[in-house]
C-alpha cells in the first residue's frame, strides 16, 4: 500500500521518490503480521473464522452436555463414512493446492493452474458428497428444526459448505491472476476451509 498522502492534480511531484522506492517500502507496513506467509489480511480472516467455528463447536459441545442421548441418537443417523470420505477429499485437495503454490514458486504457471484445478475439482466432489448427505436427511424428514443437534449440524456444515463454494471462486480468481502472492493467499483460504472441516468432523460425526 502506498502510504503517501493524496495530493491535488496541481501539486508538485516529489522528485526525491520514485515508484520503485515506494514499491520496495510497501511490505513493511504490516508490522508483526509481516512474519506470516502470503497476504496478512488472509491470516486475519483465518483467525476470525477459527473464532467463529470455535464458538460453534463450543456451543455444540455445550448442547450435547445437556442432551447426550438425543445427540447420540441423532448422530447415529449421519454417515460417519461419508464424513470421513469428505475429510480425505479435502486434505487431498489441500495437498494439490499446496503443490500449485510450489509449482508457481518454481516459475511454472501452467502446472500451478493444473494443480489448482485439481484442488477445485476435489472441492466439487466434497460438495457433491455433502449434497448426497443433505438429500438423504431431507428425504428422511430431517430438517433444520428437527432438534438441537440437527439445527447445529445444518448451521455448521452449511456455513462450512458456503466457505467451500467461496473457496472455489477464490481458487478460480487466483488461477486467473496467478502471481505467487495471489496463489499463496488463495491457497491459504482453501487450507483454512480444510482446517475447519478437520475440526468439525470428529466433533459432529464421531464423538459420542
Amino acid at each position, binding site marked *: 500500500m502506498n502510504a503517501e498522502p493524496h495530493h491535488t492534480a496541481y501539486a508538485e511531484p516529489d522528485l526525491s521518490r520514485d515508484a520503485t522506492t515506494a514499491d520496495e517500502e510497501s511490505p513493511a507496513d504490516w508490522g508483526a503480521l509481516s512474519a506470516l506467509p502470503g497476504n496478512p489480511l488472509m491470516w486475519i480472516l483465518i483467525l476470525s473464522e477459527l473464532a467463529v467455528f470455535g464458538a460453534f463447536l463450543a456451543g455444540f*459441545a455445550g448442547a450435547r452436555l445437556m442432551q447426550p442421548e438425543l445427540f447420540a441418537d441423532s448422530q447415529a443417523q449421519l454417515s460417519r463414512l461419508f464424513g470421513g470420505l469428505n475429510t480425505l477429499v479435502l486434505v487431498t485437495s489441500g495437498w494439490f493446492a499446496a503443490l500449485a503454490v510450489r509449482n508457481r514458486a518454481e516459475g511454472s504457471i501452467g502446472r500451478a493452474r493444473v494443480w489448482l484445478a485439481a484442488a477445485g475439482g476435489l472441492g466439487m466432489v466434497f460438495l457433491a458428497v455433502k449434497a448426497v448427505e443433505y438429500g438423504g436427511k431431507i428425504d428422511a424428514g430431517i430438517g433444520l428444526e428437527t432438534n438441537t443437534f440437527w439445527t447445529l449440524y445444518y448451521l455448521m456444515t452449511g456455513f462450512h459448505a458456503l466457505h467451500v463454494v467461496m473457496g472455489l471462486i477464490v481458487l478460480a480468481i487466483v488461477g486467473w491472476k496467478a502471481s505467487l502472492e495471489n496463489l499463496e493467499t488463495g491457497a491459504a483460504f482453501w487450507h483454512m476451509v480444510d482446517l475447519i472441516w478437520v475440526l468439525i468432523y470428529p466433533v459432529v460425526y464421531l464423538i459420542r
Partner: protein
Amino acid sequence: MSDLNTQPTRPALALTWALLAGLTLGSMATALTDGDAASTAALAGTQVALILALTAVKARQILAVYLNLRTSTAGWRMLFGAFVLAILGVVLGGHLLVGVV
C-alpha cells in the same frame, strides 16, 4: 512475501498428506471399534481423548506445512496452536462432563 526456498518441498507435502489421511482413518477406526457405523454407544473417555489428540496433530500439520506457518515466528505458531488446542479442550471438557452435570 515468500519464495521457493520458503515453500515446503514435494516430499514434505506428500508426507503431510499421508499423515493427514492416516490420522483420519485412525480417528474413524477409534470411533468405530464396535464395527457399527451407526452405533449410539458412548465412547470411552480415552477414545474421545485419542480422537481429539489425532485431530490436534492434523490441525498442527495443516497449519505448519500446508499453510506454511513453520516459516513464521514462534509467537504466531504458538498463537494458532493454542487456538486449536483451546477449541479441542472445550470439546473434551464438555464430553467428560456428560453425566456429571
